[in-house]
């Protein structure tokens, strides 16, 4: 499945972030969830109880389903956390 950045939008120069050790392309101002999605990565965490895969859900910071470990900090909401060059995301 290829999720796409909507056509015709100028996004500036690409930057690189790492998700589980793999490099993906992102653009300044994008949220981590958005950049991941645009690279086809929709799972942001495996739940601690039951190991069920979760991803972007409410999009407004209310559900806490899209959390991941970002730059070593646990439980960061990827829907409202912007990317920065060299940002490291672990989906656990």
């Amino acid at each position: 499945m290829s999720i796409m950045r909507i056509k015709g939008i100028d996004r500036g120069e690409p930057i690189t972030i790492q998700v589980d050790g793999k490099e993906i392309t992102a653009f300044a101002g994008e949220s981590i969830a958005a950049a991941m999605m645009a690279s086809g990565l929709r799972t942001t965490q495996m739940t601690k109880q039951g190991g069920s895969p979760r991803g972007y859900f409410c999009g407004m910071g209310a559900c806490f389903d899209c959390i991941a470990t970002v730059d070593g900090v646990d439980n960061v909401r990827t829907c409202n956390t912007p990317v920065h060059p060299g940002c490291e995301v672990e989906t656990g």
Partner: protein
Amino acid sequence: MNAKTTLKQTEIAIVGAGPAGVSAAITAAQAGAKVTLIDENANPGGQYFKQPTLDQPTQLPGNLGTNADKGAELISGLEHPGIELLTNTMVWGISEEDHHLKLYGRGESESLKADRIIFASGAYERLMPFQGWTLPGVMTAGGAQLMMKSQGILPGQKFLVAGTGPLLQLAAVQLLEAGGEVEAILELQSKKEFLLNATKLWGQWDKLGQGLANQKKLKASGVPIKYRHVITRALGDREVEGAVSSKIDSRGRICPRSEDVYELDTICISYGFLPATELPTIAGCEQFYDPAFGTYATKTNSDLETTVEGLFAIGECRGIGGVSVALIEGQLAGLIAAQQLGYDADQDETALRKQHSKARKSIENLGRLFSFDPGICDLVPDDVPICRCEGVTAGEVRESIRRGASQLNHLKPWHRTGMGRCQGRMCGPILQKFIIHEAGLEPSTVEPFTARMPIKPLPMKAVADYTTEGGETTWEDHVGGYGVARTEL
């Protein structure tokens, strides 16, 4: 006050920079008041007028673009010397004694004391669970809209949009305009109910016009609107690969042999909205049951002041009303709060009050477009988790209701529902429907979960910074179950 916490002072603090909060801030500042407007997001605009977060100027296609432009125009009014805008800042609590707001943002804890506080905290989406609804690729319709509005990203390729209410059709049109394929819209109501309810909007030509334009676009794109259909299952092991829908009869039961199977990657769901009332509730503001939308909301008088002096509630948190109500209530509350502080505004208060009562009255009918019978809880199989955070299933909840649970708070100690990371924002309204239906109770008698601080999970540091003199910080495995602190003040 702990040394690590900065104490700030303002005249009017406004919580939430959506349409209501922004319009309140502008009106109050123009009257001469010193205003602090706080929002958890990177930009003002709220969910409705969500602005693109990209570094480059962003022109979105179709309806998304028009809406963003309207929002940008409103937001430009915030460029006023009397307004301090704090973005990326969460108001996670309010002191019950002197009503200072507890803020956390950009790694800093602050407390804000204001002469007047206006709650404009908006709404959450109401949902109903189904098999597979926790899979990545299932998202709220609002979440899909936000991915497009703020990020310029289409959150999938082939979509199914399911639930109830006019938002489904709008979301589907926006997905199409952004380049997506929409396989179908599954609308819980019958076509007759939906159209009958829509005629109640007679006179609100903008809303009716928008609705008709959406239907026309969907028809032209060959997107079927399947009335009296529900989603019963998301297919896929690790993420969404398909969906199953069924037709339901007039009593809300699945019609045998009516299954449709879809191959698709993304499912968007929405069953209406719920007021975000955590902060006014903690501050002791009386809540009331709003039968039009089937939700609890914050009670106010005609000045939009809550039952606690000096605290106001506007927009969705005093009852779902949509953007037009939010904008007028913002102006009215901004004006009255400023007047109470001795400022004189160049605003026609009488006209504003008239506009306001008209807007609120017409919205009562809008509620019908989102209302649904709690009987559809029967469609949720026992093994489906209702509480996404703690994995509590429909079967466990039903068992507890049979054993006598008649309030949401009764379910907490038994199952930890409402005690996970979302603190009941997702499961609360679903559990409310379950209790009403299974126990046969009057909807107004089933109250929401008790709101507690911090209203959203925070880093421990934030709360530790925030210990008032003589207060004790207790480390509780309470919010989120992963060690978030709660301060006993």
